[in-house]
């Protein structure tokens, strides 16, 4: 069963359109929602959570979010980029206001998370570091037994060590608690570590929604000594680099002489596909 199914999610703004976004997050998987700034990652997440009035169908564990809004939201743990709410309030005050909404709230689990993350409930939100805010948001989201974690750029603003720690926590949650995760990020190194699937969005459209290995297996990063070589090889999104040109080649493409190949990372794939898109747009 899919933890999350999004079908034809659309939202029209004067300068941006989320165009029939469809993807799913299989149960027990970590799916990374990637794309450049302004690609529509946050709009997608807001549409899923009904924070914006978007069209389309969203189902969580088979339940429609419009028909069963309360039940579905009970199953979701939402973590925005850190915890930007109630800076002047203590964590205890926020927890006391938050927990009555969840009949499945587990105080013991919450206290365990606080102890694990080194958080004190007497502190005010403004006294927490960015990393601590993310951990507090996670503690709240996980203590009510959320089966699906939706996180919007949770690692932005975290130092590499905290990001590493965050990824370890998410991995542990998936293994131990069996939660499913959708998280948006533009820090793709995090995804390389923990993601099972990738949803790649560009200019409000889904360009790829598949397992990470499948996406990485689709392309090779090719290095060319001249632009003519790159053009001859039909390389995708060719761009000039320090000592030649780089582009993507489909893994099964015929390799010409003088072309150096390497495994493509998510960053490579995004950069070159975006470049190819840009070229297409400008004729």
């Amino acid at each position, binding site marked *: 069963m899919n933890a999350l199914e999004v079908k034809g999610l659309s939202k029209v703004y004067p300068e941006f359109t989320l165009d029939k976004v469809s993807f799913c997050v299989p149960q027990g998987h970590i799916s990374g929602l990637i794309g450049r700034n302004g690609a529509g990652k946050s709009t997608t997440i807001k549409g899923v*959570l009904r924070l914006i009035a978007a069209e389309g169908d969203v189902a969580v564990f088979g339940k429609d979010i419009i028909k069963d809004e309360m039940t579905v939201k*009970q199953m979701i743990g*939402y973590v925005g980029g850190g915890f930007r*709410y*109630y800076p002047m309030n203590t964590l205890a005050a926020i927890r006391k206001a*938050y927990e009555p909404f969840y009949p499945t709230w587990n105080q013991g689990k919450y206290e365990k998370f606080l102890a694990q993350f080194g958080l004190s409930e007497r502190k005010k939100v403004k006294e927490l570091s960015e990393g601590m805010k993310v951990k507090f948001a996670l503690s709240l989201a996980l203590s009510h037994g959320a089966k699906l974690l939706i996180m919007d750029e949770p690692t932005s603003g975290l130092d590499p060590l905290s990001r590493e720690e965050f990824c370890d926590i998410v991995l542990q949650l998936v293994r131990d608690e069996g939660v499913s995760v959708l998280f948006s990020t533009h820090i793709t190194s995090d995804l390389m570590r923990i993601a099972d699937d990738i949803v790649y969005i560009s200019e409000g459209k889904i360009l790829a929604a598949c397992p990470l290995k499948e996406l990485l297996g689709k392309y090779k990063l090719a290095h060319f000594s001249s632009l003519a070589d790159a053009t001859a090889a039909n390389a995708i999104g060719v761009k000039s680099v320090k000592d030649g040109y780089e582009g993507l080649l489909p893994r099964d493409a015929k390799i010409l002489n003088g072309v150096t190949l390497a495994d493509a990372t998510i960053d490579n794939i995004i950069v070159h596909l975006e470049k190819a898109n840009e070229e297409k747009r400008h004729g």
Partner: protein
Amino acid sequence: MVNLIKKELALCLHPTVFIFLSFAALVFVPNYPYEVIFFFSCLSVFFCCMMTRENGDIAFSCALPVKKEHIPLAKILVTIGLQCIILLLVGIIGAVKGAVLPAEQYVNQAGISANIVLVGNGAILLGIFNLIFFPRYFKAPDKIGVPFVIGAIVEFLLIGVFIILRWAIPLYSITLNGLNTVNTGAKAAALIIGFVVYIMLSAISCKLSMKYFQRVDL
């Protein structure tokens, strides 16, 4: 809904709410346009909405397992609760004033006396504020200034109208003015009319706010 109201009370009430509730005691000030007390109540709504914005409360609430349209309803119900408290306090403190001060000191040269008609007038003022402020606020919860300024202007115009009525119309200057113990029936009718208007306007305000908030993009 109860949980949302509890959350509002715990996290969204600005301290000025309690200070402005204590302004009900202004009915003891001689020769003062007592309707202004209700403007302070409107001001406390403005501060609470500012606090809501600064705390990111609406986005936080929307992610909770609640229906989106219940978020404006909870906020308005809390406001109505506070408004009922100020109306009650003005009524009680006004009655105490009438009981402890000589009748000549009870007469207000700046507007109507601190009797139950004042409470009715206050209910109309607050009902109109609710109708003007909340639907506009819930159309765009980040823009609090314009709805409040429009609401405040209308409030002061109405306060002016009530002061003029106090001097220009015998019904207001004689029948509805003075102690509660005189012309009690007429005064009670004015109070009831005030509350009916308040309930109707606040109910319309709730309906519109819930409708507009459904379309809000956070």
